[in-house]
């Protein structure tokens, strides 16, 4: 039985990554911006898995494991930051958070 070429997965990962990038620059809400980063990471994971498949090696999968862990940690800190910020500011709109400039 025929099956799906790796390139399909890769292209999908590219699309997701790209959409993640676009999302990051497009969204204004801090939390959703952060989500788009997660999206990008997922895209990366997909690529890793696909490559691992292609090379028929396990390293890729291990990397995915690490990425997920890191992402988890990151999100913990990130959301903490968001909360801290929310305590001091009204808006979660990233464009309104610009005391520091020039």
């Amino acid at each position, binding site marked *: 039985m025929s*099956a799906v*070429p790796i390139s399909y997965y890769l292209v999908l990962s590219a699309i*997701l990554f790209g959409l993640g990038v*676009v999302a990051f620059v497009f969204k204004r809400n801090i939390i959703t911006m952060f989500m788009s980063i997660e999206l990008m990471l*997922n895209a990366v994971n997909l690529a890793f898995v696909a490559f691992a498949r292609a090379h028929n090696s396990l390293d890729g999968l291990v990397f995915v494991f690490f990425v997920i862990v890191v992402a*988890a940690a990151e999100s913990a800190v990130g959301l903490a930051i968001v909360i801290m910020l929310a305590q001091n500011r009204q808006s979660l709109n990233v464009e309104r958070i610009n005391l520091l400039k020039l």
Partner: protein
Amino acid sequence: MNIAILMFFVCALLAVAGAVVLILAQEPIHSALALVLVMMALAVLYLLLGAPFIAAVQVIVYAGAVMVLFVFVIMLLNAGVEERTDFSKIAKFAGVPLGFLLLLEIAHWLAHSPIGTAIANGVGSSNEAADTANLSEMLFRQYLFPFEATSILILIAILGALVLARKEPS
């Protein structure tokens, strides 16, 4: 037309759709749910790629823990409708288009990469290499160091959350 391809396209479609919704949704909560959808779809794809363990982790840790955390925070801060300000012209006129350009670029090179032609196995076909035993073997021997390092990472995360998110003793 075989089941594998069908499933791939279904999931891919779901994933992309999720991503698009993530972008377009006004409510952060919708975006969050969309992201969960993406993750689920990806988990299925991982299965297709013969990485059940990763798929599991994906569902449990990512979709489970992380996204729940997100939703939790969204609720906590009851983040309402996103206000679509456009202060940043460069983001609007350069950022977004360039984002898509980057997408195309990456997609192009990935599509034309020689590795791309390798064929993945279909569903169910168990992959000895990818079985969890070997995986853990690798994780705890070859990649022991990063693994240990991640423990520090998590410790840092805890610390960070502690420091930042706690209420100020006023």
